């Protein structure tokens, strides 16, 4: 199981140094060992990993911690200490301080605020504890041994490219976008990628509204959007959690003339895509398994092992995950890793 999982991981990631090349090569069946001759899944020395993330007030965020716990459970040589999520940076800092006091072997940290947790991460690194930074980046390169990032710009590109293909030849098509919290850099990146990809095929975002990643805000934003645009051809919604509200608003308005592309990749939406019984025809994955990746990287870093399919001796500094488009054709591959919102 774990072997299969690691091949999936390798397949789904692109090393940042070589930039985001969109490598979607299918992994050769049965391959598990990379160039370096290490048996990565063989039990090694015991590794104590501390894990801290923001409050699980969002399906994706809850999935992050759950996936990390599940991943750690697969290894007999990993002891995971999970402190439960908090949005109070003062408290999260003290959680990390506790890990340092406890002299854990590695820390996997999804900070509520990357910059605010940087000083304490630096402190951990100075104490000789490798820190794996997940999703929200620190503002110092010395604060983490390795960083796992999603690809927000890439999400927008994937969604835009998919919509271009679906609407090919349809001139004057109307495209709408339901963004997340507008002032966040990640939202701005997603929107930029989306706009860039659409302009490649001569389309543009005709209507744009922003929600706040919650069901309630999604409902409100979508209701407003549907009022503003009497006819639509495609809608991209940044986040499947708020998408529950978006779907509700569409249902209430009795609209069905367009198709919907999701974001982040919840199991709900993927099941809808698989059944092909709703407006969702695709969703763009923002992996909720980043934390789990972090756990694996931490273990490898402590045990001095390398990443299976790379030639390198050490694990990379930075890993940026790919944002694949999930459609009816490939949904079975992604559904098992999807999160429940």
């Amino acid at each position, binding site marked *: 199981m774990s072997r299969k999982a690691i091949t999936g991981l390798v397949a789904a990631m692109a090393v940042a140094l070589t930039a985001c090349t969109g490598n979607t090569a299918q992994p050769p069946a049965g391959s598990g060992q990379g160039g370096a001759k290490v048996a990565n899944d063989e039990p090694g020395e015991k590794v104590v990993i501390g894990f801290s993330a923001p409050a699980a007030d969002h399906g994706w965020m809850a999935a992050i911690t759950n996936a990390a716990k599940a991943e750690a459970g697969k290894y007999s040589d990993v002891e995971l200490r999970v402190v439960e999520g908090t949005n109070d940076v003062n408290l999260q800092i003290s959680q990390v301080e506790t890990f340092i*006091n406890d002299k854990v072997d590695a820390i996997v940290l999804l900070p509520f605020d990357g910059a605010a947790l940087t000083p304490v991460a630096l402190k951990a690194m100075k104490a000789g504890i490798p820190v794996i930074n997940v999703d929200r980046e620190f503002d110092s390169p010395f604060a983490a041994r390795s960083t796992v990032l999603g690809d927000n710009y890439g999400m927008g590109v994937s969604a835009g490219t998919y919509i271009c293909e679906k609407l090919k030849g349809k001139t004057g098509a109307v495209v709408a976008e339901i963004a997340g919290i507008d002032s966040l850099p990640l939202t701005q990146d997603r929107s930029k990628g989306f706009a860039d990809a659409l302009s490649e095929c001569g389309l543009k975002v005709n209507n744009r509204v922003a929600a706040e990643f919650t069901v309630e805000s999604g409902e409100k934003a979508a209701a407003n959007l549907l009022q503003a645009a009497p006819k639509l051809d495609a809608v991209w919604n940044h986040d499947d959690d708020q998408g529950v509200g978006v779907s509700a608003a569409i249902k209430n308005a009795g609209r069905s003339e367009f198709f919907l592309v999701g974001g982040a990749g919840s199991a709900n939406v993927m099941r809808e895509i698989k059944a092909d019984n709703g407006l969702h025809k695709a969703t763009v994955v923002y992996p909720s398994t980043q934390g789990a990746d972090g756990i694996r990287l931490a273990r490898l870093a402590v045990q001095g092992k390398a990443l299976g399919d790379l030639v390198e001796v050490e694990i990379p500094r930075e890993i940026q995950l790919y944002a694949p488009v999930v459609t009816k054709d490939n949904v079975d591959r992604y559904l098992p890793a999807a999160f429940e919102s």
Partner: protein
Amino acid sequence: MSEDTATRAAPRTNGTSFLASAPGRNTGLVVALVLLCLVGVVTAGDRFADLDNVLTILRLASVIGVVSVGMTFVITGGGIDLSVGAIVALASVWATTLATQSMATNTHWLIMVFTALAVGAGCGVINGALIAYGRIVAFIATLAMLAAARGLAEIISNRRTQIVNVQGFTAFFDASVLGVPVLVVVFALVAASGWVLLNRTTFGRRTFAVGGNPEAARLAGIDVRRHTVMLYTLLGVCCGIAAVMLVARTTTGSSTHGLLYELDAIAAVVIGGTLLSGGRGTIAGTVFGVLIFTTLSNVFTLNNLSISAQAVAKGAIIVVAVLLQQRLARRSTA
């Protein structure tokens, strides 16, 4: 004469029993804290008793502790302030804007500190003036400030985290004095000054009078409205100090700083033995209240217990403490 001594002696014993007296009330808190520490030692052993862990608890307690000391004054004076978290956020943001930072780089990092204190004091003056002169109920006036200050913080920062690049600032607060982190030293200084101010000065005495019976205080010649403004300003300054500490601890200013500090501070003040209706307050109790909550949080962290379970325990502690307080109050007036 014999009758005099009799009436004097009899009610005194049950009028001010040891448990109801100030040191008595604190004894209860000390016992609670010791029990909590015992739980920590039993469940987490050396990891809990470790000096580094103690410092971790103290560092965590410092920021909210400074806010709680200020809150003790406002509650003792018969008020309440729901806007402290928002003021912390606003002060942290204002002290870390590019403009403030470049000014600080060109002159001295203390500019950032002064900015935070001034923003806190300004918010406090507004709160106090709305309550004392505008005659708006404290709950509503500070609720308005809660919304407005955080909103303003979001506007100023554009909801982005502002990173501190002023070296002197971070270096100063990162240091330790005789092994004690500067943040903890600041908290200790604030708590000690707060104790002196409340118990040994005219200002403190007037605070008790204003909180105990505002009408009687007014008729005794105290300018109750001016004093109210001063109380909220004092709390605002404490929020400014807390903001500086939080900025130092995170090297950032952000509109998300200080979330729910109002609840943590009020809870700490109340379980410390300060009467929510005013007129009675204790700084020592508040400090114990803060330490109890942060130690609780630490013990739960060490044992990998969830924040949710911690919230339940916190709620239970508040209820038990207040029930106990009411029984003591009843006994002391019976």
